[in-house]
């Protein structure tokens, strides 16, 4: 989807992409189906508040809806430092480098939590448990 597309077609394409009907989008955004149709055809401009509700219903941002802006991509790490406990687990289980890094990335992907006991650095057995949890996703 390109930035040259206007708001209406972008909304329509995203709606279809995530499997929403116009009616469902209307319900989620608390507007009429007719209004959704007119917005998608470029015949009406939604207010800021309505645009926010539409973006939320489409699980995207108002920036993308209005301008088709790509999200900023963070600077990727140059080096992957594998903790020694994970190295030991990988050695014990004969994990490939790719599988090992996948487990590490999954562990680090959650950037914050609310509630829950503080975590400690995982032991080799705990890394292996994580691999077993993720195996079906890592190995397809």
């Amino acid at each position: 989807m390109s930035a040259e597309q206007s708001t209406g077609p972008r909304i329509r394409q995203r709606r279809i992409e995530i499997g929403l009907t116009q009616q469902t989008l209307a319900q989620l955004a608390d507007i009429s189906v007719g209004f959704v149709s007119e917005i998608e055809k470029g015949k009406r401009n939604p207010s800021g508040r309505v645009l926010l509700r539409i973006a939320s219903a489409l699980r995207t941002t108002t920036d993308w809806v209005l301008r088709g802006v790509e999200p900023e991509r963070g600077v990727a790490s140059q080096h992957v430092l594998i903790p020694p406990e994970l190295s030991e687990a990988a050695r014990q289980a004969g994990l490939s480098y790719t599988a090992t890094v996948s487990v590490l990335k999954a562990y680090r992907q959650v950037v914050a939590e609310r509630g829950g006991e503080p975590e400690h650095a995982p032991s080799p057995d705990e890394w292996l448990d994580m691999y077993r949890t993720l195996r079906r996703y890592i190995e397809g």
Partner: protein
Amino acid sequence: MTFRKKLAAAAEQLGCEVTQDAVRRACRQRADSICGEIGHDLLPAERLEALANHFSVEFHVADTSQALDAHISRLARQGDTGFALRRQRFEQELLAAILRRREPSASDRRFVALIDARGHKKHMAFFSKTHEVAHPALEPQLQFEFRDETKRRDEWERFVDQVGAANVFAGEPWDLAVRQAAKDGLTIHSFETVRRNVAPEASLTAIALAAANTLGRALFVVWSGLATSRANPKPALRILTVTPSDIAADAKAFLPTNFRVPSTSPLAIAFSTKADASGNESLQEWRDSKGATLGEHGIWTSASPRNDGVLGIIVPAPARRPTRRPR
């Protein structure tokens, strides 16, 4: 990364002094600016959505175990496996978690927050959302593909709670509703009115605490129920949980848990009559098994029976004009 370093990183990106007050104020100013682009009379839920939109956070709320598993599986199949490793923690006290998408498409939001709204966690779901949105707001390092291990994590998480709530429970409709609640008396009834009018998605506890913080007042939300102690094995009405407002916490004001509620307290009256009760009382009436009191402090208590316990709002002196005196 220590609390101090995280605070310094937040202060640097906000362009303010490295103090908690300065960072809170700067965050709030930025939140007001972000929300102001949408409208100047946003309700708290709309402010939350505006901030989630700006910081590119997508919420998924799970009110059943099946829904929780479905969210986790769907994201894992898309390559975002972080929550799959947290599944067991959600069975304990984990309320919410946020991950950074590995490969967001042009139209995806960058962060996904999974909120556990099952059972008793349901009442904390809205506050958990305000908390999770505050993380990318405060932590510029989250744009990088790593997760740091934070020492003094509890202290940082409490700070994120405060910033999240201050950013969302704000704006003209909120301020007006809270000022009215203050005029009506900081009672459960007045907080219910605030909730009904401006923030039906939030819990009464979140509303009461946020209102107290907006007003700069010390306040406690307490939950009382039947419990025993080592000295007294016979069940009696006791304070089970105490949640202080920011002012009360900063002042290190303290109400002990498992303390027996005196029969003269509105909390006890509400429990026995199954009707709301409120009034002035003195903590001198609160005695432990050895007869020691909590001191000569006047408080205003508003109590309402709920399920098998009593929800209470306690505001320290100055004493307020009672609407109903405890007998």
